[in-house]
């Protein structure tokens, strides 16, 4: 797949269809891949990588990239195309300046899951028939591929590309996923248990803002939490509850716009399952307003920004909140 992508990118650069290519660049190790923009065939051949660790969603970079002159080729996995559509819908990406090549999705691997097995000093990771052969400083280790899959891929919602100009490989389908299982578990807890769960999770927050900055739905030019004039910017959290509020407010702000790409949890250095907050909103929207998938298209009106006479009454929300 990597070779086919490099070949196509070189063709499109050579015939002038695009000026730049956004994809992934290899790093020092087997897994430390960086999103990168390529402008020449040499760069592509030297550094371009597409493998089990290229999980990063590059859609958000297109906000910045399409503000520049020229056209860019973007390689998008199925999940990334949902973020892409949502950004088109919000007028954040200039569609004319992107050439989208749809590429197959995951499942992608999570190096932290490999390390959590006590496998350290990782030098290389090879997938042989869904068994990972891991060469380390301390000898060779093996583990099942399935146990190292990123959480976001383990509950994949769709293998279908909802936006593309051309595809490499075949398109897939929207999947029946298990993505709401954990949300249901949380819903079935008592209010106190749920409160304790989230207080425990948020207590780990170091307020690095990685979740916000990676989020394709967070494209405000000046976030309310960075704006001293807002009165709620809280670089210095006076108490731990302020970190909780940051995450809750952010989840509210992306509600109805979050496509469930899972980047927030993937990048969290403290492994806080932030995507569960967003999934709760998605599940509620599905139940209260009918099935809705943000980013599935670029034209429909989102339930929370549209009024219909069938909308649920506020009292429903109130009743659901009562134990």
């Amino acid at each position, binding site marked *: 797949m990597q070779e086919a992508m490099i070949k196509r990118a070189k063709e499109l650069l050579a015939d002038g269809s695009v000026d730049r290519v956004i994809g992934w660049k290899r*790093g*020092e*190790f087997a*897994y*430390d*891949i*960086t*999103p*990168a*923009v390529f402008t020449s065939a040499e760069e592509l051949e030297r550094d371009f990588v597409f493998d089990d660790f290229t999980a*990063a969603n590059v859609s958000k*970079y297109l906000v910045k990239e399409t503000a520049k002159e020229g056209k860019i080729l973007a390689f998008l996995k199925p999940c990334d195309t949902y973020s892409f559509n949502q950004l088109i819908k919000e007028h954040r990406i200039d569609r004319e300046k992107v050439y989208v090549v749809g590429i197959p999705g995951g499942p992608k691997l999570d190096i*932290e*899951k490999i*390390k*959590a*097995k*006590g496998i*350290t*000093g*990782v*030098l290389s990771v090879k997938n042989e028939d869904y068994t990972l052969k891991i060469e*380390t*400083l*301390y000898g060779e280790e093996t583990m099942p591929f399935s146990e190292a899959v990123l959480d976001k891929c383990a509950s994949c919602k769709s293998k279908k590309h909802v936006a593309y100009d051309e595809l490499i490989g075949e398109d897939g389908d929207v999947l029946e996923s298990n993505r709401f299982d954990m949300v249901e578990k949380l819903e079935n807890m008592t209010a106190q248990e749920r409160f304790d769960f989230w207080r425990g999770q948020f207590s*780990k927050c*170091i*307020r*690095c*803002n*990685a979740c*916000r*900055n*990676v989020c394709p739905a967070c494209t405000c030019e*000046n976030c309310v939490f*960075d704006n*001293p004039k807002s009165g709620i*910017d809280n*670089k*210095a*959290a*006076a108490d731990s509850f302020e970190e909780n509020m940051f995450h809750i407010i952010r989840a509210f702000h992306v509600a109805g716009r979050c496509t469930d790409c899972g980047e927030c949890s*993937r*990048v969290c*250095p*403290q*492994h806080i399952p932030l995507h569960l907050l967003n999934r709760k909103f998605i599940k509620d929207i599905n139940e209260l307003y009918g099935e809705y998938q943000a980013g599935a298209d670029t034209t429909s009106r989102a339930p929370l920004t549209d009024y219909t006479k069938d909308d649920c009454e506020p009292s429903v929300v109130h009743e659901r909140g009562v134990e």
Partner: protein
Amino acid sequence: MLKISKSRLGELFDAVAAKQTLYIPTDREPGAAEYKKYESGMELTKELNTVRSAKDFFFPQTENLADFKIEGKTIEVKDIREECGDFVVFGVRACDARSFTILDKVFLCEPVDSFYKNRRDHGTVVTMACSRPAETCFCQTFGIDPTSPEGDAACFDDGESIFFKANTEKGQAFIDSIASLLEEGDTAKLDEVNAKTKEIMAKLPLAKLSTGNFGGDKLNEYFNSDKWAELSEACLGCGTCTFVCPTCQCYDIRDFNTGHGIKRFRCWDSCMYSDFTKMAHGNPRLTQLERFRQRFMHKLVYFPANNNGEFGCVGCGRCLAKCPISMNIVKVMKALEEK
């Protein structure tokens, strides 16, 4: 050398904790360790290091510096400082131990930061030698020997026992306080363990990384390098690298009106943030390129320029493991060195 069997480590922790607050690195979840206040039964992690660094003990993420009470036209300033109690941080790795030397250069030079000094004075750092370095480790680049860590007292694990060595008076006092639990032990096996670790150190992927091309005299050479644009291109502008870094020491001070008075807070800040160094006239670093450059220039050029050649990095590898886009000081060094 004095030692204790690893099976009796719990007894030792109990004895230390009976006299002063003890913090040890323990597992929060598989693959993620953190320092926690020791409670009987708590086990030492098998992870190489903690997700957050040990700097938190001396330079906490947030602290309340002072309170102000305003009544009419008078402002009362309340010094709310409390003398910190004695505490021990056990199991600090060699990289993090060196980070304290770097932080000391910032906080203990004139004018001394008395908040930081208070905690340094009351804290005893007990380090633990490494025997399983990770691929992300590059402490040797900064002249750190992980088989012989700094700190007030150093510990060494030969697989069966933990050996103790004092590096300072404070460390000697720590060892004296637990002497009744220790016995004299033979270090033959420990020497083997250390030799093996050194073999691994030589084989680490970053073993050849050198600071030779960096230092205080490289300002003009690197500041205007055309590499910064590409290096910073994918940077999210989050603070992960800064906040997991044991040597990043920039902070912000802000006053908050609580409605019942003013609280003055200090908190970690990150040069990666858009409002860092924001002043009345605006922000001198307008793009992520400039913010990104600042972080690495600080560690590789400005810090050594002001501190007799000492670099502002200890090679712990946390930023390599945690940056959401896997951009880090190693990649920056290698890119800048390419002519």
